């Protein structure tokens, strides 16, 4: 297929359609509304299901119902709307049905604003709805990656009967850049053997997240965990840039990773031996790879568009072996490459003092400026 100039949200929606999406249920919220609008036009054209729900709460429960039929189904939203979906996500996890959710993150907490942010990391990666479960979380850094990861999201969701969240932000959702869409995949496929379709010529099926007997619930928890172990073994994804001979490593995901890459390139041109590790699967998180990286480099800089939510995961991976520093912008502010470059230069030329938590050190530096 040719490369086209595509908007992130539209490209993501069209990628889902080409991956064989059968039903979409959603609710308008900036900066993800183009997804909803694109589906509203395209899905009926193709004879597929589109429905604008009365709320995100209803949308995720419609998705839940449709997923129980074994249909390929998704929803999309942005931070405040995703908060409303947490109830349904927990039920979906407990019922073990595959669902894809795209979260186009915006500034928060609360109503916040409509600018690009990474403030949902903790909620999506570590939190979510109530109870014991882990979703797969994929973080694109470009329009092309939004397409590729959305398609992958459906395959992983169905392979593991899992929730897969594409965690993107208002910047990637709204930007236009050249990207290539895949050919249309056939929507025809066999309904899985757990699907609720009406008990014709077979025993009836029940799909539920209720296990009143704690021992039975625990068996389900074990099953989810076993599946998660498999996911952790198979599905860790990340990208490395200039890390072969690096003495400093920057770690950032999504837009923060992309901005950091510009800074790393400039620093390289200045002769600083710095590289970038960009986690793509935020859950499962590349702990091992970061641990190995920590053994090789002098220090690590974590860059995020939040208060250092992934930072805690990096610190856990590094285990105190290598100094870790942090640079963040919050509230919907996207850092300029120069800001990250200044941090790289500081790490390259100034002696590293690690006193206390990197977040505290960053706040101190930031406030002095």
């Amino acid at each position, binding site marked *: 297929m040719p490369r086209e100039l595509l908007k992130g949200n539209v490209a993501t929606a069209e990628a889902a359609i080409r991956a064989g999406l059968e*039903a979409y249920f959603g609710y308008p919220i900036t900066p993800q509304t183009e997804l909803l609008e694109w589906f509203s036009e395209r899905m009926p054209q193709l004879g597929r299901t589109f429905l604008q729900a*009365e709320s995100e709460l209803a949308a995720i429960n419609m998705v839940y*119902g449709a997923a129980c*039929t074994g249909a390929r189904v998704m929803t999309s939203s942005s931070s405040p709307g995703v908060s409303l979906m947490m109830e349904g996500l927990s039920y979906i996890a407990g019922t073990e049905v595959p669902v894809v959710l795209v979260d186009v993150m915006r500034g928060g907490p609360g109503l916040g604003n409509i600018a690009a942010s990474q403030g949902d990391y903790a909620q999506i990666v570590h939190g979510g709805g109530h109870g014991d479960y882990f979703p797969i979380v994929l973080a694109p850094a470009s329009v092309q990656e939004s397409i590729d990861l959305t398609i992958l999201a459906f395959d992983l969701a169905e392979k593991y009967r899992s929730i897969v969240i594409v965690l993107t932000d208002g910047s990637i959702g709204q930007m236009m850049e050249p990207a290539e869409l895949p050919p249309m995949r056939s929507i025809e496929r066999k309904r899985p053997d757990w699907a*609720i*379709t009406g008990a*014709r010529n077979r025993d009836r099926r029940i*799909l539920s997240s209720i296990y009143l007997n704690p021992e039975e619930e625990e068996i389900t928890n074990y099953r989810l965990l076993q599946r998660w172990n498999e996911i952790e073994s198979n599905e860790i994804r990340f990208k490395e840039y200039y890390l072969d001979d690096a003495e400093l490593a920057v770690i950032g995901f999504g837009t923060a990773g992309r901005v950091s890459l510009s800074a790393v390139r400039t620093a390289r041109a200045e002769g600083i031996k710095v590289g970038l590790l960009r986690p793509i699967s935020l859950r499962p998180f590349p702990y091992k790879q970061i641990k190995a990286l920590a053994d090789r480099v002098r220090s690590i800089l974590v860059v995020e568009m939040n208060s250092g939510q992934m930072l805690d995961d990096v610190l856990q991976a590094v285990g105190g072996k290598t100094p870790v520093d942090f640079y963040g912008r919050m509230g919907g502010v996207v850092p300029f490459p120069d800001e990250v470059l200044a941090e790289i230069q500081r790490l390259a030329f100034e002696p590293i003092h690690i006193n206390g938590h990197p977040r505290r050190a960053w706040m101190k530096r930031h406030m002095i400026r």
Partner: protein
Amino acid sequence: MVVNQPVEIVYHRPESFTEVHTHYCPGCTHGIAHRLVAEVIDEMGLIENTIGVASVGCSVFAYNYFDCDFVEAAHGRAPAMATGIKRVLQDRVVFTYQGDGDLASIGMAEIVHAAARGENITVIFINNANYGMTGGQMAPTTLPGQKTTSSPSGRDVEQMGFPIRTAELLATLDGSGYVVRRSLHDPKNIRMAKKALRTAFETQVRGLGFSMVELLSTCPTNWGLNPHEALKWLEEKMIPVFPIADFKVSPALTQGIE
């Protein structure tokens, strides 16, 4: 004494019922409502084509009793879940079975919009004027002055507002094809309820939009009455507030009857 005479079976467990004991309290009318739904599914020959959506409340285990495919929704979200199923499997019959806390309180947005969209699903709505499963708290259908565990001095409408007449409310929406209220307190009303349930399922099969039967039901355990007193209380106290009537009947349905 008569021996070896052929016997005619006049009463049996509906085919659409599983052979298990229900968990409902003695005297509760959930059992009657379940049976009526199962009889209608039997008579219409729908069991292999039907998908049920259980809700949260006393009817949370409805999926154990109907012998068809079932899902279990989050509290109040059964109409949304049913929408998701019906939109993908349009030729299946999809019904929800919800109580008053589930449908008229936490799930009010979902039920109103399902009706407004003319969602082609059937809703069985059990109105027993309180939250049964959690032990008899005030529901949106609790009568003025009615004592519950969360309105111990009786529902004070100045403080706690008024009961919601759900069937009347949903009947105002253009998407509603068939919305009626029936009661389960005596044989005559039970027969009327069954007829209404049949019409509700027919509304769906014929694609005439949203259908709901509100069933006035008893909750002897939480009302603190014996089963007989509970039936009387329903008749004397509930029906004046929740009249038994047809609130919306699609013209196509009455034409069909002729």
